């Protein structure tokens, strides 16, 4: 099944050549139905949500709350109140790190991994600084898989939080998150899974994962930028304090003090990104009508084709050979900095990312300055792969 036609931007050219968009790890393109939903919202229904007593506000509120319910189904949450709208993965992790401040004792461990994106490192460092906790990172092996022995050593009764990525944005490693969550729960730790790279590449089931928090961004799953979701276990959310104060999140306010609403509104101060939520709702609808498993399998075939093709090009070295991989292929070329390769591919209309991918600890662990990263989505096709391979062969003649 080919869904390319649903994404208008894929028809454009780049540097005078047909666009080959392989930077989906950074952000995905938007289908016409999402663009229409945002357009329709602003043309016909724009109003502030949850407060005004008029028809427009009712319609806007209904659209936004419908998106919440769709989000609940997308991650298979038990309650719709467990779905909190955020600006994206980064804000979701910062929110959790903030509201856990009172829960962390000095000397406790916050366990992350060597594969984490900066947004699943820095908020925990800030929390550690506030609370006197330690940061421990689960090591990886040479192929880019988590060292599970090291995980077992680091997840102990001293662990307060385990925060781990579902799929690595730098190498594409699919982590055994359910197993790690189980280990963390067994020692009484709270668990957060960073699903930023996972949302279009595997089915998300927070009940099966049994994690306390799951975070992801809309823009990496065909929805607009500036909207994302934090899933949190409801009983836990209602025990935790708010992180931002303002309208919408309160129950009663006096000059001296306030009482707060329960989740999700407790964590949604101020006017939310309504248009973003509406666009996200449209993206959930779009995905729900697609044969997801077929598309995910097709994407995996493309990734395998790219991998085997790249390995046949002299001077190309694949970075990371994880046992289970999704979407991402990172590589280096002999005699060329990733930046050189990226520029030479860009000139051929091939959009991908070069650099450290917000994975500086991972890159320094691997002893490299960065990689060239091709990251696939459900609309990529064999032509994209073959153009990439031809482009890399051409780039090799320059270096």
């Amino acid at each position, binding site marked *: 099944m080919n869904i390319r036609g649903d994404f208008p931007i894929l028809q454009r050219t780049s540097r005078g050549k047909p666009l080959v968009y392989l930077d989906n790890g950074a952000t995905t393109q938007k289908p016409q139905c999402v663009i229409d939903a945002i357009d329709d919202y602003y043309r016909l229904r724009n109003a502030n949500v949850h407060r005004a007593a008029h028809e427009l506000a009712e319609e806007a509120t209904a659209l936004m709350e419908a998106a919440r319910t769709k989000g609940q189904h997308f991650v298979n949450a038990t309650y719709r109140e467990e779905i909190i709208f955020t600006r994206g993965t980064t804000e979701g992790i910062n929110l959790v790190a903030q509201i856990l401040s009172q829960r962390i004792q000095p000397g406790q461990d916050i366990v992350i991994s060597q594969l984490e994106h900066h947004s699943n490192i820095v908020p925990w460092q800030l929390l550690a600084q506030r609370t006197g906790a330690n940061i421990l990172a689960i090591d990886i092996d040479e192929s880019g898989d988590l060292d599970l022995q090291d995980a077992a050593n680091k997840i102990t009764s001293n662990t307060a939080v385990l925060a781990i990525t579902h799929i690595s944005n730098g190498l594409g490693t699919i982590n055994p998150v359910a197993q790690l969550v189980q280990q963390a729960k067994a020692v009484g730790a709270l668990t957060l899974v960073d699903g930023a790279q996972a949302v279009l590449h595997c089915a998300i089931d927070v009940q099966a994962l049994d994690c306390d928090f799951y975070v992801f961004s809309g823009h990496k799953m065909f929805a607009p930028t500036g909207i994302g979701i934090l899933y949190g276990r409801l009983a836990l959310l209602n025990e935790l304090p708010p992180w931002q104060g303002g309208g919408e999140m309160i129950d009663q306010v006096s000059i001296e003090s306030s009482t707060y609403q329960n989740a999700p509104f407790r964590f949604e101060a101020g006017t939310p990104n309504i248009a973003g939520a509406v666009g996200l709702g449209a993206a959930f609808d779009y995905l729900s009508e697609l044969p997801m498993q077929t598309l995910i399998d097709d994407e995996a075939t493309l990734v395998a084709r790219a991998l085997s093709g790249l390995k046949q090009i002299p001077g190309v070295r694949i970075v990371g050979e994880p046992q289970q991989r999704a979407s991402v292929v990172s590589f280096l070329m002999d005699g060329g900095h990733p*930046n050189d390769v990226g520029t*030479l591919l860009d000139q051929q209309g091939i959009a991908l990312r*070069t*650099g450290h991918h917000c994975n500086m600890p991972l890159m320094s662990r691997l002893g490299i*300055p960065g990689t060239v990263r091709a990251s696939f989505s459900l609309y990529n096709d064999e032509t994209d792969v073959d153009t990439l391979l031809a482009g890399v062969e051409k780039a090799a003649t320059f270096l």
Partner: protein
Amino acid sequence: MTLDELIDTFSFFDDWEDKYRFIIDLGKELPGLPDAAKTEEHLIRGCQSQVWLTYEAASGALNFHMDSDAHIVRGLIAVVLIAVQGRSASDIQQLDIEAIFGQLDLLAHLSVTRGNGLRAMVARIKAIAEHEAT
């Protein structure tokens, strides 16, 4: 090579391949810096590639020595050097490096999104010229 010769050469390139092969060759000819000079102090950090810069001022002229870990950036450094090497601080202050990149259709490399340290390098050269002029 003078700046005019460089602009003249570029005007003969009719596709990106010739232009980038030329830039990469310029980069390969760049004397660069010995590893000992590639210190934190001389580093201009880019998100993707790095640039190192040292200079000396002698009898009114500034001489720069620069290097990068990426070929294309080295080539672009060579382009900048053609424009600034051996000139006076006040000349360099007057120089519109961005306009030169515009003429060579290389302006994209100075964009903030490139993260290759070039924009910061141009700013550093300007700051050195200002410092030496006073």
